């Protein structure tokens, strides 16, 4: 087994070699191809990180523009995010629309980590939109995640604690004096902040005391905001266990009761386990699922210190991790199984697919991505449970949970749909992977061996066997007598750009060739 050479957060500097740059971009953007390589080429690692860590501007709200929806309250071309709740039937349509819109934001990601981190926080600070059942709440939840994606974690937790979607999802809206509901407070400690590592010893009584601190909040459907009701708030003092230094959160009455949350979060964030837990999750998201004792001591602990020193600002931690010698260690190349978004959107970004111009058609394409990625067991907006997707917490398999006899077959079906000659049908509109354009970006396309090698370098994070490589080459050379025939064919392509039959011949070969790459087990890795 190739050993990890560096357990150091020491920053690397200078301009990255192509393979290092590809590693950085694969892990931070959803897929990288010629477009990304060109954009980041010749930039220093510091400059790359400046770009990646810059928060993307807020996206325009989802619009009602589905001709199939006759929404009396929301005319076509305007948004429903502030509209009155209508009924479950209409809201279900809006929710589906919202999730497809979210998928669209991912597909349209610029060169920022914002979308990747929004998805990270979705997996960390979970809401299931099909349980919340109010699209406007769902929109506010997604907007919150996106606004803080590269911002401040403590602020995110504070907003989430009274976010309307979260109040519904974890029953914070039914948590009142004399009748505490501990659903949110339990997950706040177990899943959102402290975690359940062996050194975390909060008690059942702490969960209950925290629930009392959080009592009195409700969502308001009319104003689509959270509200605090002092009369529902438990104003008695809350005693915590020795794990929290026997801290007492003073009960407060009147509007002041709302401020107890801050005292609770201060207490929870004082425990270094909170910073450690989030850093481990970030590490699993970006580097590898394996955390051994060396990684724990030399990477996680220092990262947690950075997190604490920067008052839970997320960007400094990511900068330290993603710019480190450890991150660029060759041992980690291609060792993460792509999640379904990384797989499907990743292929789309690698080949820089252009979506239809019409908003309606584009939306249908986004919906196609949303449904198929859901089919691969990653429904954006609805993780399987409050713990998020198995791949990010269920040891020791972690990312391998994405892969089973069903999902592999389905991934390969998706890959097949991407190299159909007539294009990929997305609920009506078609998108077409322009494989010819991709291949023409290589200088040495006429040399079939170089074309195979260079394509694999860009597309595939793991080296394949010579046998598999020869099979791929054979696809390009099918019915040709020699490699020179390929060179001739390639030359003809540029000499006679208007010769449709040559173009079609080359395109067909490339289509099946790139399809072959996407169908390899190695292509599942990043």
């Amino acid at each position, binding site marked *: *087994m*190739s050993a990890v050479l560096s357990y150091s957060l020491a920053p690397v500097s200078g301009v990255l070699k192509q393979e290092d740059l590809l590693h950085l971009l694969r892990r931070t953007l959803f897929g990288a191809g010629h477009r990304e390589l060109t954009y980041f080429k010749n930039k220093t690692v510091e400059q790359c990180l400046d770009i990646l860590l810059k928060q993307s501007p807020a996206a325009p709200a989802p619009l009602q523009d589905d001709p199939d929806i006759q929404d009396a309250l929301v005319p076509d071309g305007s948004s429903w995010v502030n509209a009155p709740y209508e009924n479950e039937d209409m809201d279900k349509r809006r929710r589906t629309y919202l999730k497809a819109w979210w998928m669209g934001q991912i597909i349209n990601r610029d060169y920022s980590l914002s979308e990747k981190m929004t998805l990270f926080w979705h997996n960390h600070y979970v809401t299931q939109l099909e349980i919340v059942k109010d699209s406007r709440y769902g929109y506010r939840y997604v907007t919150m995640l996106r606004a803080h994606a590269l911002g401040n974690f403590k602020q995110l937790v504070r907003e989430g604690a009274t976010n309307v979607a979260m109040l519904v999802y974890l*029953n914070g809206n*039914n948590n*009142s004096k*004399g*009748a*505490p*509901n501990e*659903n949110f407070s*339990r997950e706040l400690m177990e899943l959102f902040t402290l975690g*359940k590592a062996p050194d975390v010893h909060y008690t*059942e009584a702490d969960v209950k005391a925290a629930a009392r601190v959080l009592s009195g909040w409700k969502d308001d459907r009319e104003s689509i905001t959270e509200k605090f009701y002092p009369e529902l708030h438990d104003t008695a003092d809350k005693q915590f266990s020795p794990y929290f230094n026997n801290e007492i959160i003073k009960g407060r009455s009147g509007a002041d009761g709302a401020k107890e949350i801050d005292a609770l979060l201060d207490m929870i964030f004082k425990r270094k386990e909170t910073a450690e837990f989030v850093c481990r999750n970030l590490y699993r998201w970006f580097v590898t699922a394996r955390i051994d004792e060396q990684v724990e001591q030399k990477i996680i602990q220092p990262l947690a210190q950075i997190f604490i020193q920067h008052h839970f600002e997320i960007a400094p931690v990511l900068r330290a991790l993603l710019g480190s010698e450890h991150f660029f260690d060759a041992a*980690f*190349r*291609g*060792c*993460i*199984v792509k999640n379904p978004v990384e797989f499907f959107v990743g292929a789309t970004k690698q080949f820089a697919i252009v979506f239809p111009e019409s908003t309606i058609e584009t939306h*249908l394409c986004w*919906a*196609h991505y949303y*449904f*198929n990625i859901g*089919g*691969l*067991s990653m429904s954006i907006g609805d993780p399987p*449970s*409050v*713990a998020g997707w198995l791949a990010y917490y*269920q*040891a*020791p398999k972690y*990312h*391998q949970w994405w*892969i*089973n*006899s*069903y*999902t*592999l*077959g*389905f991934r*390969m*079906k998706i890959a*097949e*749909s991407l190299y*159909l000659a007539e294009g990929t*049908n997305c609920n009506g509109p078609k998108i077409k992977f322009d494989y010819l354009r991709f291949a023409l970006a290589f200088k040495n396309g006429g040399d079939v061996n170089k074309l195979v090698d260079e394509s694999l370098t860009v597309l595939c*994070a*793991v*080296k*394949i066997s010579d*046998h*598999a490589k020869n099979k791929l080459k054979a696809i390009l050379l099918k019915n040709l007598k020699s490699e020179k025939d390929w060179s001739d064919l390639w030359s003809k392509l540029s000499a006679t750009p208007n010769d449709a039959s040559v173009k079609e011949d080359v395109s067909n070969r490339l289509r099946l060739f790139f399809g072959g790459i996407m*169908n*390899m*087990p190695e292509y*599942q*890795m990043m």
Partner: protein
Amino acid sequence: MKRKTFIKNAALTALLPYALNALTACNHLAGGRKNRVLVLIQLVGGNDGLNTLIPLDQYKNLLKARPNLLIPENKILPLNGFSNVGLHPGLGGIKDMFDNKLAGFVQGVGYENPSYSHFRSSDIWLTGSESSKVLYTGWMARYLETIFNGYPKGFPNAAHTDPPAIKIGDTGTYLFQGTSMDMSIVIDPSTPFEAPDVDTDAGETDSFAGQEVKSIREILLQTNKYASVLKKALGTSVEHSKLYPKEGTNPLADQLKVVAKLIKGGLQTQVYLVDLKGFDNHDEQADKKDPTKGAHADLMAQLSQGITCFWDDMNRIGREQDVMGMTFSEFGRRIMANAGNGTDHGSSQPLFYFGANVHAGITGSNPVINDNITANDNLALQYDYRAVFGSLLKQWAGASAAAVSEALPGNFPEIKIFNS
């Protein structure tokens, strides 16, 4: 926009599954019980046992603890021969099975030092661990490995032609996680089974990535090896029970329908896992005005309906003597209702099982509910869940004592579940 539409649109490639070894199939568990099939039904989220199997002799105190949640006395379904317990009114089908001696319950099942975390507790139930110990393989997988020794190496073979286990859904499960790989084939009810072609030639293996790719390749190869038996079974035309609801309305029924199809189609797999999600009813578990309605009532009805249709199917295809099912959940719920007329995470729960040869009746006694229940009170533990599963392995599968302790280490008393 549905997945099925997508599948129809995608081109189909010819797949070349491995040739099926035409030798006689006898893919049996220990003791030659080769026709027996076990269907485990996981109730995800923590089922409220007190509103499932209701202790009538505790009704007064229970009503005090959960006034707007407890099923009105006159709506509780009586059980033949057991005057002090009754069933949730949504469980009509299960009542019929029970009255016909086709079903049983074990009361108060759980484990010492219960975890109230969904995730930890699910892991405990699926891996067969004690509360404080973390295991990384499933208890059923450990049992299956005593039969499918060294899996996947050498499997399938003449004696074991079919997959050791089937998981219905889109994700694998700890229950079937073996030492070196998932011992189940995962089948999604809404999508046709596909076995993709794969180059068997390994690329780099001497790296973290190479190891991961190796696992993926193994799943592909193993899936391909079972492709022909699975396609044959799934391709069998079955006239299902008329009792099944419209597809997409009861996820458990949809899943059990696939299991029925596979059994009818002659698949020799003997262990299945299906699930029903949504039991984490912290809030509005029941309608305040009518506790027989609401989220939990809907789940009870789906559970009962799913099992009823499936059982009807088993009778129609003449496999009712071979097939048994059992439910479990990661925990029960608290005795006292919370402010939202829901319940928080609890500990012990009743397990339900069914089949023609099960030990009909109720094992264990009603929980004792005192008259000053507080929010923290939980039901007492009567049986360790490993006693139930261990007894199941012994009686249903004919597992040896050694195989049982391989699957579920520890000494647990035997409970009568199956008339072996």
